[in-house]
């Protein structure tokens, strides 16, 4: 066996700090799913016993998800994940709207699932306003209000930003939407399981979430649709999900989402404090022991698990690889845009220059991280940064930091 093999075979003690990309499946979620992949394999639409077993599993999950959101079970539509939920909400509202309501308001820091959908709308003659954010990474509700026009049909704002972790003032925006009689959609993929979610308080009509971001399985998500909201469906098929989403239900996945939602409801109070403690320890350790590091986004208004740091004189891509070779997983920006030439649209939206955006690293923690892992990372990270900076052509004049 050669040393490379050890890495791939996982013998190195690996540390996973990329929970905003995806999370490991929780053991209780796995246990809940297993029967629906084996004995309870029925089609949830079938009349017989098998079908009824599957249906019961899915309906229990619907209640669990509804409870996480403070919604009614009938308002939960299961989908294939966050991207489908976002598409179904945005295209669904615009598709069902009156012909004179052809304007959408969203923000410049949305996930590509919303941003690309909004840009697709533009190509079909719908006008879209992308509200900008300041260096805090938090959108100002007054800017959202100012973007509204008589023909505005939908406001779509994410709850927590995937790269910065910043929490958007949805309650306030929800009030504005209600007063102006405009549909309000929130992409809550990055907040679900991290902070409390209450669709009544937030004032949303539609809300997207994804199971694999809260220790559930990949390939399943949900869309909350407030009672009375009329959507045009994306796909055509059978009468599943009350005619809102055709296709045989992914019962095992749905059960997994339900179990993950249930665990989140139970653990949230304790977990968010614990994870915030780890995140703060990691962040403070880096800021103390590594020179030329700056934190991005509003420190007070962010989910407990995320920190985004710009390392001066650093190639982000090289850093992520160097860390991975030492067994620590973190990321530059979001996994959905890695490999692309463009620097992160979120980081440039908060005013970072392209080279600063490329030197920015996201650490996102989760339920299975420990204090020992933070300590081990703080042992390794300063030397990795030094190794990269030593090769950087710019790292000879530290006194000019910030003026580059």
């Amino acid at each position, binding site marked *: *066996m*050669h*040393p*490379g*093999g*050890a*890495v*791939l*075979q996982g*013998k*190195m*003690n690996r540390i996973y700090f990329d929970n905003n990309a995806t999370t490991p499946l929780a053991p209780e979620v796995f246990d809940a799913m297993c029967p629906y992949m084996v004995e309870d394999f029925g089609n949830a639409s079938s009349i017989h016993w098998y079908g009824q077993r599957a249906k019961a599993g899915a309906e229990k999950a619907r209640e669990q998800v509804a409870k996480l959101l403070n919604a009614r079970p009938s308002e939960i539509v299961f989908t294939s994940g966050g991207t489908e939920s976002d598409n179904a909400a945005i295209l669904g509202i615009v598709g069902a709207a009156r012909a004179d309501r052809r304007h959408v308001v969203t923000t410049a820091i949305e996930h590509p699932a919303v941003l690309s959908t909004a840009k697709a709308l533009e190509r079909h003659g719908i006008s879209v306003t992308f509200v900008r954010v300041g260096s805090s990474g938090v959108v100002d509700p007054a800017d959202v209000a100012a973007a509204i026009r008589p023909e505005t049909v939908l406001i779509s704002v994410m709850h927590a930003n995937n790269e910065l972790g910043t929490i958007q003032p949805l309650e306030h925006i929800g009030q504005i939407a209600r007063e102006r009689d405009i549909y309000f959609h929130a992409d809550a993929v990055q907040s679900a399981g991290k902070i409390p979610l209450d669709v009544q308080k937030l004032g949303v009509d539609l809300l997207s979430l994804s199971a694999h971001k809260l220790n559930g399985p990949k390939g399943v998500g949900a869309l909350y649709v407030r009672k009375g909201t009329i959507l045009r469906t994306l796909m055509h098929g059978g009468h599943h999900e009350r005619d809102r989403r055709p296709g045989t239900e992914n019962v095992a996945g749905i059960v997994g989402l339900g179990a993950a939602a249930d665990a989140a409801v139970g653990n949230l109070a304790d977990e968010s404090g614990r994870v915030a403690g780890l995140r703060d320890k990691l962040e403070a350790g880096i800021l103390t022991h590594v020179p030329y590091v700056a934190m991005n986004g509003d420190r007070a208004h962010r989910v407990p698990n995320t920190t985004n740091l710009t390392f001066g004189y650093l*190639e982000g*891509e*090289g*850093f992520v*690889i*160097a860390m*991975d*070779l*030492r067994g620590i997983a973190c990321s530059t920006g979001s996994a959905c845009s890695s*490999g*692309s*030439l463009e620097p992160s649209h979120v980081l440039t939206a908060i005013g970072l220059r392209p080279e600063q955006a490329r030197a920015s690293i996201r650490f996102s923690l989760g339920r299975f991280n420990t204090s020992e892992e933070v300590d081990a990372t703080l042992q390794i990270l300063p030397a990795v940064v030094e*190794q*990269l900076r030593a*090769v*950087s052509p710019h790292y000879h004049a530290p006194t000019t930091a910030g003026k580059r």
Partner: protein
Amino acid sequence: MSIAVAMSGGVDSSTVAALLAGNNSAIASGSAPEVVGLTMQLWNQRRLPQLLGAEAGEGGHASGRCCSLDDVYDARAVASFLNIPYYVINLEEQFETAVVRPFVDAYLAGETPIPCSRCNTEIKFAQFLTTARQIGAERIATGHYARIRRDAQRGRYRLLRGVDRTKDQAYFLFGLTQEQLAHSEFPLGEMTKQEVRAVARARGLPVAEKPESQEICFVPTGSYRQFIDAYLGEQQRRPEPVAGEVVSTDGRVLAGHTGIQNFTVGQRKGLGAATGAPLYVISIDPAKNRVVVGDDCELFRRIFRVRDVNWIRPHSPGESMEAHVKIRHNHPGAAARVEAHEAGEAVVEFHEPQRAITPGQAAVFYDGDEVIGGGWISKIL
């Protein structure tokens, strides 16, 4: 970690990875790995979709060229097969700046450039080496058929062509600095292509039977003219078609043309002029926007100037030497006198006239198997 392998997804670099991974049979100690595979993402083939027509498969992406998705899949499959860590690094921006733009600009200036040498000097042995060192690799290895020797007496590195005479890739490496040579390894330098295939087969590499790609990697159709046109269109730099003249060597106007970038020295077809005898492009005059054509025998010239010379074996201005000089990758080379000049220039004087000495191509000077240096052909004297 000691070495990073530049993996293109082809059989050569995959075999390099296999050879190096096989050398590291020590028991894992939980420390960082010894070999890591890296693929450089240099150009996005989907960027100029109009070029994909002929090559596009069902999914609409080019296949069988460097940086196609298939090549990344192949490289990843080999790394996975060898059980070495593997990453794709994005160098598209640097590649466009250092290779693609100069390539297009050279054509617009009437030259016939060869992008691979610049890619080696500016990307593979510069940016790539930097990234490799950043992630903790002390050295890089590539699948070039060339050899590096350390001259202990002078404390310098020498560059030799590979033992496979049919695969002289030292030609493309004349621009390497001592620093770059010191950190590079060419494990295929002592092997023939047949031996490399045999190793790939014996190891069961998934790319062992993959065919060779001969084209310029970022030109998916093999037509550089289509590429230049599409790229200039995307950049909104497409020049107004400037009608120019095709003239004979004695100054007679024979026809018109729509742009000097469509011509290359030695070209016979598509000249739009006929005089009975076969005509060839003898030279291109960008200042007058003229293409000069004539007999085959007029293509044979002896003396030319070279710019941006890199001396791997140092030479001072005024020094001159006998060398074997190649003016194209597939040129067999011929005996010449090379004189080093100031400002990185040199003048080459072949003992026998050579056909189609072409501005923009690389002239590389050899002493036997050793590359003494080389530069870019700038002017026929």
